[in-house]
Every structure is written in C-alpha cells, then in structure tokens.
C-alpha cells in the first residue's frame, strides 16, 4: 500500500483541497515514449519543438494525466479509489524540467453512489497548463 492515503468516505468533503508539485524529467519522457509508443518529435526533439513555436520539448499530455492518477490513487480518494471519469483541457504546454503544481478541489460527494467530483488545475508559475474534472468512487 506504500503511502496511499486511506481516507474514510465520511472524511472526504466538498471544498477540501490537495496539491503537490512535480517536474517531468527527460527520463520520464523517454519512459512514456516507450510505454505509449508515442514518439512524436514534439516530445523528443528540441529543434522540432522550436520550429513549431514552442520554447522547448513539450511534456506529454499523458504524463499530466499520470499525475492525476497519482492524485486519485494515492491522495483522494486514495487507497479505496476507483477512477471513473476524466475530462481534461490542455491549455498551455509544460516544458521538460519546469516545475508545475497540481491543485485539486473536491467539488461534490454523492452519498448514494460514493462518487466524488474533483476539479483539478495544473499550473506553472505564470500560466495554466491544464484544467480537468474527474470522477472517482470511494469503495471503502
């Protein structure tokens, strides 16, 4: 179980916030390329990224989704989570090596279904990277 947060259903309340910082490394980018099969040069080649108008190699959107997986699986709902839905918009690129912060707020809880709604923002210091809404069940 490592350090999975074992929140009880009754302790998860609308308005609660959770956040963490992360930096995506070149090694993680290579790992995602191997895992996903997505070898698009936007995510691998600085010259290609620059030619497309980006300041550097762009972090995979899938890696941002992976950070949402960390939120749901390890923090809220945590140990008893079953992830059921995600709606995400990628607003601005995150570059490899940049520090980003994921901030999540519990927006609703449904006692009848034990499903929670989450509003998620992934931010760099000067811009919004992604906005998302996620649903997850608490099966505890």
């Amino acid at each position: 179980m490592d350090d999975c947060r074992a929140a009880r259903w009754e302790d998860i309340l609308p308005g609660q916030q959770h956040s963490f910082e992360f930096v995506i490394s070149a090694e993680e980018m290579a790992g995602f390329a191997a895992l996903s099969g997505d070898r698009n040069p936007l995510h691998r080649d600085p010259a290609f990224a620059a030619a497309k108008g980006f300041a550097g190699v762009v972090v995979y959107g899938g890696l941002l989704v992976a950070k949402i997986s960390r939120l749901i699986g390890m923090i809220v709902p945590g140990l008893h989570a079953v992830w059921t839905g995600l709606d995400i918009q990628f607003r601005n690129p995150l570059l490899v090596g940049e520090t980003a912060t994921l901030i999540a707020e519990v927006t609703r809880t449904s006692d009848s279904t034990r499903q929670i709604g989450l509003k998620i923002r992934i931010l760099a210091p000067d811009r919004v990277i992604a906005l998302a809404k996620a649903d997850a069940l608490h099966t505890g």
Partner: protein
Amino acid sequence: MDSGGIYQRLTPLFCETFDNDDIVLRPEMTAEDVDGWDSFSHIRLVVAVETEFNVSLTASEVAALKNVGEFVALLTRKLS
C-alpha cells in the same frame, strides 16, 4: 414539479448517460431495457440526476428502486 416535468428533465440525462438519443422513458423501464445500463453507468446516471435536480439521495433509496417509475416517484417526493 409534476411527474411529466421530471420525465422531461430525466430523458436527456438517460440519453447522455447511455449515449442513445432514442431513449423514451416509461414507468416500467428497468436496466434490462437499456443497453449498457451496468453498475458504473448506473452511478453516472444517479449522480447526474442528483446534480440536475439538486437533490441528495441515499444509498438505500437508490437500492430500493425497481424501475424508472419508482425513480420518478422518489424525485417527486424529494422535490415537493
């Protein structure tokens, strides 16, 4: 709100949940009558209904429902 109004507001929720614009709700309708009405889609439907009608349902209220008609009756009570 009368039951007609509830059926009117429920129908698009069913259509969206089950990705089927042809669903016509009937009081006797059950999960057997709708393709894809499984436990996960049932949860999505119930949460969508709670959000649309701004009501909170309990697990026991939902578990007791036998068909759409009983769902509408429950909502009618909650909204009155």
